[in-house]
């Protein structure tokens, strides 16, 4: 789920940037530093949408660098256990398939794919029901439920299931 939240960060700035454009420098540095990062608590920082306040700078001893506390608003993406969302299948293999929902990658193990769907290997590996009516392959859109998340330093990884009511393929690329 995407959220719009306010976060705070202490930014260090080199004295050479002091001047009229200090704020600009701070903001652009903030964007560079923060956008695209991921933390377990807040998820992926997708975009900074605004800076609420920049506090008073504190000169650090010995370096001349100044630390500014910056409060900023940003859009974050944070997956939750139990959350249901839609995702695009990026890879299918015999263990299951990977799907992406924005920046987050979700693995759906074959144990969490309905039993009536079988893996079919080939150029376009896929999971297909015995009657062939439903097929999951690369680029399929699926609705899935996140059942577990794991946080790394740089990403959040999820496992999901489509073995539940109202979950599964919502759009089959071949059908279009």
């Amino acid at each position, binding site marked *: 789920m995407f959220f719009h939240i306010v976060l705070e960060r202490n930014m260090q700035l080199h004295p050479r940037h002091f001047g009229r454009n200090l704020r600009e420098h701070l903001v652009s540095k903030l964007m560079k530093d923060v956008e695209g990062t991921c933390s377990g608590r807040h998820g992926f920082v997708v975009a900074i949408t605004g800076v609420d306040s920049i506090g008073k700078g504190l000169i650090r001893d010995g370096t001349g660098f100044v630390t500014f506390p910056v409060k900023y608003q940003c859009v974050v993406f944070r997956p939750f256990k139990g959350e249901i969302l839609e995702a695009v299948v990026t890879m299918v*293999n015999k*263990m299951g398939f990977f799907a992406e929902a924005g920046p987050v990658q979700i693995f759906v*193990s074959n144990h969490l794919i309905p039993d009536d769907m079988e893996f079919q290997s080939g150029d376009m590996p896929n999971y297909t029901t015995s009657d062939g009516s439903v097929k999951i392959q690369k680029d399929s859109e699926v609705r899935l439920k*996140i059942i*577990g*998340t*794991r946080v790394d330093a740089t990403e959040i990884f999820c496992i999901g299931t489509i073995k539940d009511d109202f979950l599964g393929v919502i759009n089959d690329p071949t059908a279009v």
Partner: protein
Amino acid sequence: MPRRRDEDEEVEDDDYEDQYDEEEEEDDRSSRKRKRSDFIDDAAEEDDDEEEDDDDDEDYGGGGGGGRRPKPKKRGSQFFDLEAQVDSDEDEEEEEGEDDFIVDGGADIPDEDDGRRMHRRPLLSREDEQEDVEALERRIQARYARSSHTEYDEETTDVEQQALLPSVRDPKLWMVKCAIGREREAAVCLMQKCIDRGPEMQIRSAVALDHLKNYIYVEADKEAHVKEACKGLRNIYSQKVMLVPIREMTDVLSVESKAIDLSRDTWVRMKIGNYKGDLAKVVDVDNVRQRVTVKLIPRIDLPALANKLEGRDVAKKKPFVPPPRFMNVDEARELHIRVERRRDQMTGDYFENIGGMLFKDGFLYKNVSMKSISTQNIKPTFDELEKFRSPGENGENDIASLSTLFANRKKGHFMKGDAVIVIKGDLKNLKGWVEKVDEENVHIRPEMKGLPKTLAVNQKELCKYFEPGNHVKVVSGTQEGATGMVVKVEQHVLIILSDTTKEHIHYSITCFPQIRVFADDVVESSEVTTGITKIGDYELHDLVLLDNNSFGVVIRVESEAFQVLKGVPDRPEVALVKLREIKCKLEKKSNVQDKNKNTVSVKDVVRILEGSCKGKQGPVEHIFRGILFIYDRHHLEHAGFICAKATSCVVVGGSRANGGRNGDAYSRFDSLRTPPRIPQSPRRFPRGGPPVDYGGRHRGGRGRHDTLIGATVKIRQGPDKGCKGRVLEVKGQSVRVELEARMKVVTVDRSIISDNVEVSTPYRDAPRYGMGSETPMHPSRTPLHPYMTPMRDAGATPIHDGMRTPMRDRAWNPYTPMSPPRDNWEDGNPASWGTSPQYQPGSPPSRAYEAPTPGSGWANTPGGNYSEAGTPRDSSSGYANAPSPYLPSTPGGQPMTPNSASYLPGTPGGQPMTPGTGGLDVMSPVIGSDNEGPWFMPDILVKVHRPGEDSVGVIREVLPDGSCKVILGSSGNGETITSLPNDIEIVPPRKNDKIKIMGGAQRGATGKLIGVDGTDGIVKVDDTLDVKILDMVILAKLAQP
């Protein structure tokens, strides 16, 4: 046989005791004859005899299951007594006489109540030497009767048992050496001596253990007592008497318990025969006959069986054991094996009887002696359990049979807070959390409301409970240490998605070994680590050198060993190695050459061209002895690693100099703006030299003249101090350096890089820039050896000329460390001269560039060029007369260009130089032969640099001299000026802009930029509606009319 031995021994013992008796009788006039034989026999039963006779069984039955029995405290509790396999024990013997088994079990114990020590003294001190057998019997009767009244508490608690352990105040146990093979005899001698001597013997007991040769144990308070007792016995060497530490005393007499209760559904392993080591499940137990019926996966060689049953001569028994396989009755019938279907009287089940063996559901049902199975520490593996799961069996049974697995649980298995589920009994399926753990009982806080706050449940009825999504850590078993997420819970089995392989890979993870473990072996873990990835100094994905000088990459770390993908290129070979088998970690960074002699270093992306993994590509993780270990995230096996010979791979790209696109683009333009004046070789410009000029200039291109480019430098100051890197670009005082270690490009001041510039290895990045999306290989070759293989250079020049896209500069520049590039040509590359002739206007436009032929490199392009160019002169002269390339004067426009081919034997590329010509030509016809802005075209939006100001304009016309008429204003409605190409800069288009293609085959065409991918633009060409991928630098923004 064992039985025989027993009997023999018995007899022997008897004999010798008799003897003894006689002797002693002589000595002591002892007339008493006791039934020693029983006792001795008893002792003889100590070991695992295959067959025990019935009275022995009764013996055991009466006495209880075997177990441990600390000699010093014997009969201390029911527990000990129960377990005791009676060893030679004089006191007991004497006191109990003939009924010793029975007394042993029951009658003795009450005695204990009176006082542990008591029973001995009276025995020893009794004056019953002359007592007749009847009297003895009476006494025993009396005691026995008394004991029967005493209710002995069945459940001895641990505390009580603890109290029975020897303490410092108890007699000590001494180890005395005796003659080998005479242990029993020695003990018996001591015993006899005690009997004969009575109280003057101050030892308490003597023990000989069957498994211990050369020693007997004697229980006594003092060493002197032992020596005293041993005096005069020839079999005992009492010089050396060793004290058994108090803690080890119990162990001396502990006997591994033989009889555990075997019950149905217990997992056991076969000890002997073809099925040795196989897992079996107990289906029936006959305690009386000491036999069990087990269910096994048959190992039957059907054809052999058929032969045997039909009485045919069976070939000499093959040494191999048939693999376990379910019995297929139909198959058996096909081999004309008689299969009878019979109903078992007792159970009512049907069995197939084949040659006397019973089968059901493919399993073999075998009746075996309890002795032939082992029941201790049975830990079935998953595979085994899986195999045992036949269709008829549902999970219920599984759970039930699990209880035997639980028997092996360690203490502290359950911890407070663990989620558990009850799997047996009334509360079955109740979930809860562990609150407190007692010895056997676990207090759980049930999930369900309306139940008491905590419930005590026997730990055997509990199983840890997990849900999919839990992050867990495996705490025992072969997967110990692994962490992962629970994907599925099947009864007690968890399927876990291991984190391990995920480590290390930043984005997509494609292969997870899914591991299966028992729920029992797992704890929930919030650990965000990725399991064990390290043993000792070696970590997952390390390149290691093994004992036998082979090497490989660690692809999995198990609890005690590594899985290593060996550096054998042909087929993947995985070895399981122990820590000590690894010699060292290989960390040396080395470079190798790929198929095209391009340098490959770690982190380069390569594509595999040959072998089973053909077509795969990924970054190189390790290089050793010409072998690359490539990580392909789409590769499912071996943790994504592929091992390949460097020579069967080609570099696809390199570490990317990112973020510099703009700058680079501009710098390209820069190069055009300030064309280097290179007068030193005028003869090269027979036609006014533009072509060569291009060549030269373009070579110069990005950071031309700068020897620094491509060089490896070290940064001396600043945040990146100490880092080494390759110079990508030099712009005035600043230098852009790609840091090796960080895969990052930084811009630093030129003054802070170290000067000891070494000419770097060829720069891998170039290709990318050079050809854009076109064949990656193609550029990669050329750049490599600008100097050594002249033809390359030669080829090179034309090519980039042809492309006349600034980007070629980039391709080239790095490889021309000497500033005036042309000099190089002159000196080193005679062939380069050959190129010049081809710079002729009028030759066909750049066909060569149009068709990127991957893999073909130069060779192809030129070919096409030639033929299509249709300039007979070229082909004839170029190929036919190979004039001396050393005639510098000729080159310009001379038809008979020296053909490089002739001078460059062995260059696979063929005539690399030729292709370029086409390219050059391209520009000429269109814009005129002159220089700079050859690629400027009408209608494109440009920036015009004028003194004092820069303004945007639209090129109206390109004059023959190369200068352009530019109408100022973005829509082309302002003032018209004429500008030199140097002052004009193309406005790079953005996504969705209308563009005009300024170079390549599509030159002149218009289109729309539908996407930008790095330096490549994705263009939809207006006329053809084709989508092309073109280098951004040949795209110009089209002025909107």
